[in-house]
């Protein structure tokens, strides 16, 4: 045994290390719990998408319409194509992903003369990754 080890205080973790361990343990346990619950409720079924107008705004001479897309199904939807129609005008955009249980949003622009109350949103299709 060296002189250095003789002078060394009794081995053990200090309060800071115990606190970090305790928080880490709870964090890892929480993450495992969330993922385990997801595993238990997982079903191999397709995405169930709904889209609705989330709001409108006049900005820079254009009428902007916010569209919110929600996935209440089990599967993931990729490349979700959204079309918005307002009178004779139409606009579209694509969302990369809408995971299950989440809401993703996008915006389309129209001439400011359109009636935003007449705007209708539809989902053209999506890809199953």
């Amino acid at each position, binding site marked *: 045994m*060296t002189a*250095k*080890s003789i002078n*060394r*205080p*009794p*081995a*053990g*973790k*200090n*309060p*800071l*290390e115990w606190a*970090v*361990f305790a*928080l*880490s*343990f709870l*964090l*890892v346990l929480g*993450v*495992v719990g*969330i*993922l*385990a619950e*997801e*595993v238990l409720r*997982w079903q191999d079924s397709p995405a169930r998408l709904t889209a609705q107008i989330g709001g409108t705004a006049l900005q820079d001479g254009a009428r902007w319409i916010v569209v919110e897309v929600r996935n209440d199904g089990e599967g*993931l939807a990729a490349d979700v194509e959204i079309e918005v129609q307002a009178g004779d005008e139409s606009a579209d955009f694509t969302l990369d*992903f809408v*995971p*299950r*249980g*989440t*809401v993703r949003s996008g915006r389309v622009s129209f001439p400011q003369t359109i009636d935003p109350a007449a705007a209708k949103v539809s989902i053209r299709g999506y890809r199953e*990754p």
Partner: protein
Amino acid sequence: MNFSHQRSIPQSLQEYGRGIAGGLMFSLPLLYTMEVWWAGFTLHPGRILLYLACTFVVLMLYNRFAGLRRDAALREVAIDSVEEMGLGLVLASLVLWLTGRIDHDMSLAELAGKIVMEGMTVAIGISVGTAQLGGEGTEDEGVAGDERWSGGYLPQAAIGLCGAVLFVANVAPTEEIGVIAMESSPRMLLLLAALSILLGALVLHFAGVHGADRHVARDTWLLSLRGIVTTYAVALVAAGACLYFFGRLDGLPWQLAFAYCVVAAVPAVLGASAGRLLLQIRPPGH
């Protein structure tokens, strides 16, 4: 409970600082890779759980055989591994939030998936950083290793696996691996495999890499051959596992999946050879 170390709070803070620096250094490419963000919600949650469990095993192997706790009991190694996972999750969350990859509108499952897929590599980086970035004169520097364990064939293979994972995890999730695998002819894949084996042999036996004289068995040609073959096998396993965990092998025919593994094994073999030697900061029993 018996522990092998005693640190003051400032020393612990220093060690956490080294870990955070290492965690960011080794995992920053992944934190900036969108395929990894996507993996958090495209993968089955069971696979993400398995990834978390496998990372825990890799951390245990590294901490036991190559890190600062070579003289520690299994329980102490487990405690340190949990700490590193927790810090990895916190650090990954922070970077993902700062870069706008997570927000309060996301579901818990998406948040957990993204943070775990990023945080586990950060945790391995924290473990390596804590051990590798330490300066002279710290308490841990004087720890005596157990040569019987850490110098053996299986421990060296385990450390090689840690090195391979650390290297290949940074490229496995990217589209580029698939592009190379799909566009390579069988002849080119064979050449890539030969290059990987040659790289392993070069690093372990001919390049004079620091630590090779102590950690590479080379008493007979058979032992040398075993080391080279094992290094490539470990690299292939690490490449296949990382590709699987990032969802890159899903739906592929086995021939193409194998091509992916051969392509990803090139960086993995560097991790299993040079990385393995660099990860062993001190010779066992020094």
